[in-house]
C-alpha cells in the first residue's frame, strides 16, 4: 500500500523537476514565477512532511501540504492549491486506504475549493481546464466499470488534453487576462502544473 508521504514526495519532486518549464510557460503569459513559486512551495512541503511519522495518514499529510503551500508559494497558486489540498484532506478524513472512488471525491473537493477561491469556471484558461475534465473522465470510467488503473489513466489523459485546449482560448482570469487575445497559442501554466501533479500521483497510485 502506498503511503501518503511517498505520494506527496512524488508529486513534489515532479513539480520541482518542472520548475524551469513552468516558469517559461508563465513568462510567456503571466508574471514568470509559477515554477519558481511552486518549487519553493514544495521544498517547504518536504521540510514539513519530513517531520511527520512515515505512516501518517493521507488527511494529515495533505493538510500539512496545504498549509505549507499557503505559507510559502506567494503567487495565486498558493491560496488556490493550498485550498485544494486542504479540501482534499477533508474529503479523506478517517480513510486508511485511497481507492478510486475516494480519489475522485478528493479531486472534486479540491476542484470545488479552487472554484470557491478563484471564482473561475471551465474554459477560462486556468488549472480547472485540466482538473475538471480529469474528474469527468474518472467519473465516466468508474461508471463504465473500468478498473482503477484505467480510471487513473483516463483522468491523466483528459487533463493533458485540457492543457492542449488551453492553447486555443483567451485568458480571462489571473495575470494572463491582461494579455487578452495575445494569450492564445500559449498553454496555461496552472493547467500544466495541475496535470504534472495528477500524472505523478496516478503513477504512484497505480
Amino acid at each position, binding site marked *: 500500500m502506498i503511503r501518503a508521504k511517498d505520494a506527496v514526495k512524488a508529486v513534489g519532486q515532479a513539480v520541482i523537476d518542472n520548475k524551469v518549464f513552468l516558469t517559461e510557460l508563465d513568462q510567456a503569459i503571466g508574471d514568470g*514565477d509559477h515554477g519558481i513559486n511552486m518549487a519553493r512551495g514544495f521544498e517547504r512541503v518536504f521540510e514539513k512532511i519530513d517531520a511527520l511519522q512515515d505512516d501518517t495518514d493521507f488527511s494529515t499529510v495533505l493538510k500539512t501540504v496545504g498549509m505549507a503551500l499557503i505559507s*510559502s*508559494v*506567494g503567487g495565486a*497558486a498558493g491560496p488556490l492549491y493550498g485550498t485544494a489540498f486542504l479540501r482534499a484532506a477533508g474529503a479523506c478524513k478517517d480513510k486508511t486506504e485511497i481507492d478510486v472512488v475516494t480519489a475522485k471525491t478528493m479531486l472534486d473537493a479540491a476542484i470545488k475549493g479552487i472554484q470557491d477561491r*478563484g471564482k473561475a469556471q471551465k474554459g477560462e484558461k486556468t488549472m480547472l481546464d485540466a482538473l475538471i475534465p480529469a474528474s469527468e473522465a474518472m467519473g465516466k470510467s468508474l461508471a463504465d466499470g473500468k478498473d482503477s488503473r484505467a480510471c487513473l489513466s483516463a483522468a491523466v489523459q483528459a487533463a493533458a488534453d485540457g492543457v492542449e485546449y488551453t492553447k486555443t482560448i483567451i485568458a480571462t482570469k489571473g*495575470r494572463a487576462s491582461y494579455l487578452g487575445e495575445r494569450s492564445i497559442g500559449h498553454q496555461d501554466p496552472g493547467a500544466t502544473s495541475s496535470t504534472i501533479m495528477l500524472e505523478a500521483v496516478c503513477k504512484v497510485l497505480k
Partner: protein
Amino acid sequence: MVGIVIVSHSSKIAEGVKDLAGQMAGEDQPIIAVGGTETGEIGTDPIRIQAAIEEANQGEGVVVLADLGSAVLSVGLAKEMMDPDLAKTVYLANAPLVEGTVGAAVEAAAGSSVEDVLQTAQEARAMEKIE
C-alpha cells in the same frame, strides 16, 4: 476605531502606502502593512495577512485594501482561516490601493463605522485625477 490593512505583492508598496495614509490619519489609527512573502520576495502570504487583520482589529471591524490578483485570493483565504466572528466584520474594498487606503484611513480616523469606511474606500474608484 476601524482597522485598516494594506496587502501588496511588494512590502515596499505596502509600507509606502501605510506611510502616506498614516500621515493623514494620525498615529492612533491602526494601519497594518503586509507585503511580500515571508522570505521577502514578491508575493502575498495568507497567514501573515490573517495575523495583520487580527492585529488591526479593535473590535469595530477591519477594511482591507489589496493590489493585484493573488492578493485578493490570499485575503479570501485569510478570512476563511480566522475566527468566523471576526471574519464577518472584515471587508475587502473593491478600490484602488493608494487612493482607497488614504480615503479609508481618514474616514476610520474620524471614528466612522466599518460600512462607512468601506464605502469611502470604494468611492476612490470614481475619483478623477484630471478634471
